[in-house]
């Protein structure tokens, strides 16, 4: 079984407070913020490792990212992927989810041999949850999103989807794409052995010219959505301190309730 795992390198959330917005260009400055694997993609990789170990075959990680994200691909190899592909080109910059899904799909089609595609439900930075379903659409394969449980034996795959209303259980057959939630498994910790093995594995880099894609469909100009503005929300309020011992504080709180007509 050949499994392809779409992985997004994102700025490390521990450093998000360093993000700054250029008020003129509205471009987010990410300098100095290290990149890490999007957490939910680790859950996807873990599932990929389980499937590969059970059925044999190859687990392939693929990302569309700037060149400096290469260490993240190395991490996927240490995690257990057999190969990694980095789709990288200045021309890709500024792509919205449509452009990103289009590019990743072209990469997947070039790899061509796949039974299952896995990815995290959403990335922590953009949080749109669009790319997984959009890749499935480009590749014309069925998909399920918000997968919280996955069980399989030699010929049946049972997938649980967590919707706001409850859990839907499906039977699926390859080829299919799944987007997974954090409930689907607990990713293992990368071991020293994994890191050593990674050194013998390949990261293939593909640029615009390596893929069967059109210029006008990618990048900032190719994206159907545009940013009209980016705002850092001004939500600060000047809070009044309430002090005293616990009885006094409680009384003051109750007074506020009365004032506001809550009590």
């Amino acid at each position, binding site marked *: 079984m050949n499994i392809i795992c779409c992985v997004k390198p994102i700025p490390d959330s521990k450093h*998000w407070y360093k993000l700054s917005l250029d008020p003129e260009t509205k471009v987010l400055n990410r300098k100095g913020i290290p990149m890490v694997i999007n957490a939910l993609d680790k859950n996807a990789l873990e599932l990929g490792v389980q499937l590969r170990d059970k059925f044999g075959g190859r687990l392939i990680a693929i990302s569309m990212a700037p060149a400096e994200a290469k260490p993240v691909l190395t991490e996927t190899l240490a995690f257990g992927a057999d190969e990694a592909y980095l789709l990288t080109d200045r021309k890709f910059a500024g792509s919205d989810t449509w452009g990103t899904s289009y590019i990743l799909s072209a990469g997947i089609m070039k790899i061509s041999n796949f039974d299952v595609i896995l990815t995290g439900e959403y990335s922590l930075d953009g949080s749109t949850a669009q790319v997984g379903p959009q890749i499935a659409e480009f590749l014309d394969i069925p998909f399920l999103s918000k997968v919280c449980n996955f069980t399989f034996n030699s010929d049946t795959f049972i997938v649980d989807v967590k919707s706001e209303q409850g859990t839907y259980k499906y039977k699926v057959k390859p080829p299919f794409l799944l987007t997974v939630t954090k409930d689907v498994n607990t990713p293992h910790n990368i071991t020293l052995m994994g890191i050593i093995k990674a050194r013998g594995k390949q990261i293939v880099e593909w640029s615009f010219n390596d893929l069967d894609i059109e210029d006008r469909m990618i990048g900032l100009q190719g994206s159907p959505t545009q940013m009209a503005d980016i705002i850092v929300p001004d939500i600060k309020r000047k809070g009044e301190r309430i002090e005293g011992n616990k009885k006094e504080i409680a009384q003051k709180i109750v007074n506020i309730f009365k004032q506001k007509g809550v009590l």
Partner: protein
Amino acid sequence: MVKILDEIKIMEKLKIWIFAEIFKHEIISGSLELITFANNLNKENIEISAIIIGSNVDKHFTTLKDYGCDKIYFKNDNLLKEYQQKYYASLLEHLCLENKPDILVFSATRIGSELSSTLGVRLKTGVSAHCIGLKLNPENKLIQEVPGFGGNIIAQVITPNTVPQIATVMPGMIKKFQSIGTKTDCEIVEIAYQIDALENLPELVSFTEKETTVQSIEDAEVIIAGGYGLGSKENWEKIEELAGLLNAGVGCTRPAADEGWCSEDLMIGQSGKVVRPKLYLGIGISGVMHHIVGMKDSETIIAINNDPKAPIFEVCDYIIEADAQEILPAVIKEIRASN
């Protein structure tokens, strides 16, 4: 001459389409909210349509008319009885190609997210996700307000050059949505396109409904929210006690839900509920942006936390730097005493 002018007028109408999602024989409130939103735009020359598909949808026409639809596109088909992504997307795709709506909105549910994303690819158009605000600009383009980086930024996204402009919207964006009385001239159109059965689609084996918890907190006037700082399930129960005394809704943060103290349904934040109560009292909540995004528009915010650096203190009206585990029972005691 008159006919041509009439046709031009029809072409100039801004066509806003709302996907009316059905669950358990009812249209979900997130969809109804969006019909109210379209009506609230209060603009001339807007045509508001609902799209409703399934196997027995006629019974919903009255509700859709009541909420203010000018038009209803519907389809009944056995293949549509349960949601199957490829069938629903295919039908919507053909309907959009034929009728060219300007705007197509979904509630940000599992179905709304899947359909919006895939339609974006099929129709080569832009899609935004989990909008917390929607506006029309002077050119009648939809400005879609979307949080990013855990809510640390709000992006205003537009789809300037293609139609439909597609968006999914967080439930709770419109606080009060209501029936406006039947629009007398609502046009009901049966969708002609026939879907063909496909092979190798995911096969639905079963559905297990979530245990229904308390009433939806989006409507609550007062919300008592608890976070990790409560420390234990016993303390969590005091949150429920306090809420009971005030007839208030109960909310939580992700860490509290992860601890198993309460249902994830009560989670307030970017991946949970967006609330705008008259009063929000946060107890033992540090206030990461992810949560703040869900409650920042509350009228009055009171926060209790023993960490002087808790980010929630930057966004609240009343700062109480104290031990939540002590203050909570004290407040309950005071309320009981004053009754």
